[in-house]
């Protein structure tokens, strides 16, 4: 046994040494620490006046002010005082850490004493986690933010509660839910993207249909997961025209790829000259870093909406509401833009969407996005990947 223990010790020591300079692995579970520090940090100076405190805490059950003119009714300061007592909130999102962390840090700097616990997943995984947690009766999260096609299922599963933040008044009707389950906070745009080393300017597509022309044969790539765009084109153009278009794409023998970001990376690397149906964010970000990528907006640019809403069993409703308000208002929206994400609020969207030009924009309605799941088989058959 001695030699066995020795072996174990060697393995342990050697690994500890290699751990990027960290002295030793901690034998204890580091779980409770963040919550504890967060709870200790905020020391509410004085109890808020009963009148102002009552409004935000009870608002969890029922929105106080029905109708769109709620803006002045929401006292952010009172919300902040109540949020500080809660001390933290848990934010479930598909916003990746690279882009999301700086935004969240801005919030925490603006509202000291309210810590955001950030749980970041891809949408499929987020759904898996939320479904399983709901089944186990663990719905303590406060705010969820993700793409519309998944979000609508959260609404259907009653994971959300009605909440019309005051700031929603600044959003047009097509970007917020009439039944107050969500507001659109950011968007992903769909437009063709190309590699400028491999495509001459005179070849740049002017319309979606250009991509079905023979000069693109064997030069385009299709992201297999973009069923949403397929569904959106059917809604916009009618089934027949949309199918003709996508069959034309399939006839051009596209390279089928898996993953939006991966496709953008390979586009930049020159693996294929043009990507038909990937989000524009990544090629645009790469272009800003000097990659030979270019987004070529054609009529129309489709927008996938990312929605934000308040958890049905939110354990920190005031902190959650404060966060949603901030996220949808100037500071949050600008912070999103600064981190290369297209903020949804039209005035702020304009500031970041210059590369989309003045091309017509079609936001994909959640009720259309809802249908994309059922289109998967048809999409794959059309692309010849079944």
């Amino acid at each position, binding site marked *: *046994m001695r*030699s*066995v*223990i*020795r*072996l174990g010790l*060697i*393995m*342990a020591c*050697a*690994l*500890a*040494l*290699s*751990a*990027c300079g*960290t002295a030793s*692995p901690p*034998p204890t*579970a*580091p*779980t409770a620490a963040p919550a504890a520090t967060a709870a200790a940090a905020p020391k509410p100076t004085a109890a808020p006046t009963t009148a102002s405190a009552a409004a935000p805490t009870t608002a969890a059950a029922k929105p106080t002010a029905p109708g769109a003119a709620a803006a002045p009714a929401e006292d952010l300061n009172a919300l902040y005082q109540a949020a500080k007592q809660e001390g933290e909130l848990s934010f479930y999102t598909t916003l*990746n*850490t*690279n*882009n999301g*962390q700086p935004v969240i840090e801005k919030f925490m700097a603006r509202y000291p004493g309210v810590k955001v*616990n*950030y*749980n970041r997943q891809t949408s*499929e*995984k987020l759904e898996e*986690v939320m479904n*399983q947690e709901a*089944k*186990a009766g*663990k719905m303590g999260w406060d705010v969820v933010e993700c793409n519309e*096609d998944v979000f609508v*299922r959260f609404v259907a599963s009653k994971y959300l509660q009605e909440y019309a933040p005051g700031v929603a008044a600044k959003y047009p009707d097509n970007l917020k839910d009439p039944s107050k389950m969500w507001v659109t906070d950011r968007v992903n745009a769909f437009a063709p993207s190309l590699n400028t080393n491999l495509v001459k300017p005179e070849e740049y597509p002017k319309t979606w249909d250009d991509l079905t022309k023979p000069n693109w044969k064997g030069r385009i*790539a299709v992201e*297999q997961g973009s069923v949403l765009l397929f569904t959106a084109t059917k809604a916009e153009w009618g089934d027949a025209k949309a199918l003709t278009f996508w069959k034309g794409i399939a006839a051009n023998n596209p390279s*089928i790829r*898996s*993953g939006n*970001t*991966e496709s953008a*990376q*390979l586009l930049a*690397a*020159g*693996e*294929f000259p043009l990507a038909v149906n990937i989000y524009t964010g990544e090629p645009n970000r790469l272009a800003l*870093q*000097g*990659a030979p990528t270019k987004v070529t907006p054609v009529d129309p640019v489709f927008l996938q909406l990312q929605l934000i809403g308040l958890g049905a069993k939110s354990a920190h409703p005031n902190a959650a509401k404060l966060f949603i308000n901030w996220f949808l208002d100037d500071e949050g929206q600008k912070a999103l833009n600064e981190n290369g994400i297209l903020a949804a609020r039209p005035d702020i969207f304009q500031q970041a969407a210059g590369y989309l030009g003045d091309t017509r924009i079609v936001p994909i309605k959640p009720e259309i996005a809802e249908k994309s*799941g059922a289109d*998967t*088989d048809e999409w794959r058959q059309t692309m010849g*990947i*079944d």
Partner: protein
Amino acid sequence: MALSLGRALTRPAALRFRIDGRYFWAALIVAVLAWLTIVPIVRLVVGSLTDPETGQLTLANYVRVYSSASTRDLFINTIVFAIGSCVVSFVFGTGLAWIIERTDTPFRRFFYVVAIVPIIVPGIVTTIAWLFLLSPQIGWINSIAKSAFGLTDSPFNVYTLPGMMWVEGLGASPLVFLLMSAAFKSMDPSLEESASVSGANWFTTLRKVTLPLMLPTIVSVMLIVFVRVMEGFEVPAIIGLPGRIQVLTSKIYVALAKTPKDEGTAGVLATLFVLMSIAGILLYRQLIKRSDRYATVGGKAYRPRPIQLGRMRYVTFGLLIAYTVVIIVLPMIIMLWMSFQPFITPPTVEGLGRMTLRNYQRMLTFPNVVEATRNSVFLAIGAALICTFFAAVVAWVALRGRIAGKSLIDILAFMPIAIPGIVMGAALLAMYVSFPIPIYGTIWVLLVAYATRFFPYGMRSASSSLVQVRRELEEAAEVSGASWLARFRCIVLPLLRPGLLAGGIYILIVSMRELSSSALLASPNAPVLAVLILEFQEAGNYAAVAALSVMLVVALAALVSLLQFLGAKIGVQMQ
């Protein structure tokens, strides 16, 4: 776990059980194994038998999947892909292990480090590196070959079945290398010596004596590789899909990407993998029934003596160099290059101007990076210790235990490997989110998940090493009155050491980058490195993943060298 078990075993009376301690512990082992493996598999099978619309039990999923023509084509593709990858990994892994462990090739110890370092590199980085080497459009090797030989077409195309086998097989070859070299290490070379005394040359000896003796290990490791290739996602998604080569996992991926999720189809296919792995284990057990044929570790003392290759040793040295340059260094150069670029590109002159340290800076300043490293190291050590020691006990029970149903234990211990990572991740999440002991959201749930995922590796390496050990040693000790624990501790464990160490090293390294269950189970309170990798991967920041890989490779190379150094020291002490 194994330690506390050992302590308890020394005082069975304290437990006040009147039954034989051996049966008690065998039952406990079966219970733990059953919990770890049967629960996710039952979930899988139930999913495969459930109608997604109505939730009622039905065979419709099986009928639908098995009657579709595409399933048959994909099945054939999958089998061809898996066999081809096995061949690639076997040739490289075994060849390296033989040269390094059994011959007098110069500098062979150095190549030990070279052979196992690639394990730490995340699959996405290796796969993309091979795209950048072998793609007909942008592949480096292709453009060099084209300009060197004046070709108009690219000689290599990675988007083919052989291309997939190459990348996947190379990915698995370090594992083959580790387990095979452990087997070579503990083999008594006297049979080889007899062969060469009788006039056989080294090749005949290798073919007629060495490899047949290695059969249990070969079958064990090929079983792992075969099943792993079958359930792997990365290569089919990145290389297979653009090449229009679909395999069964592509179908699972699509089924799970649908809304609502088609868990029926995914379940049917994953069940097929599980059945095939059970068949593999039964085959293995059949093969080692007369296990004494393979047992060369007996009562006689021996010292492994390397085979004198004569002039041939410069050839084997050349082979090691060629392997290192083509298989290790070229992809590593691509990885290193990518890590200094703002976005991934194949190496070009104009790219030189874009070189940047930002990826490293970003990696090191990422929130929680220190905590994540610490957690990952802790988990890797924990998973490796649990899997190897627990596996040693379980392997002993499955091979030597005097109880009925031993093959069931073997099957139970191997099954988790057959379940595709994303399916397993979801099953583990469902199991532990409402587990009465509140481990969900802590680091402990990951330890359990890793132990479940990697136990089969520990089990296979322990089992194939145990087959090499003759029973006579234990029997002698038993006759002399040694308890089971004393025998296990003083005889079995020391003799299994090379195999356990090989399995342990592998588990330790892959735990650092386990993605599929980490993604679902890691909580923001307990970050791990794997989640960092995923974050950057999903954010499209492959350059940052490459930077992390470079750092991991450097750390691992240092670690392995240190281990080798310490290992050599222990070896001296023991003599």
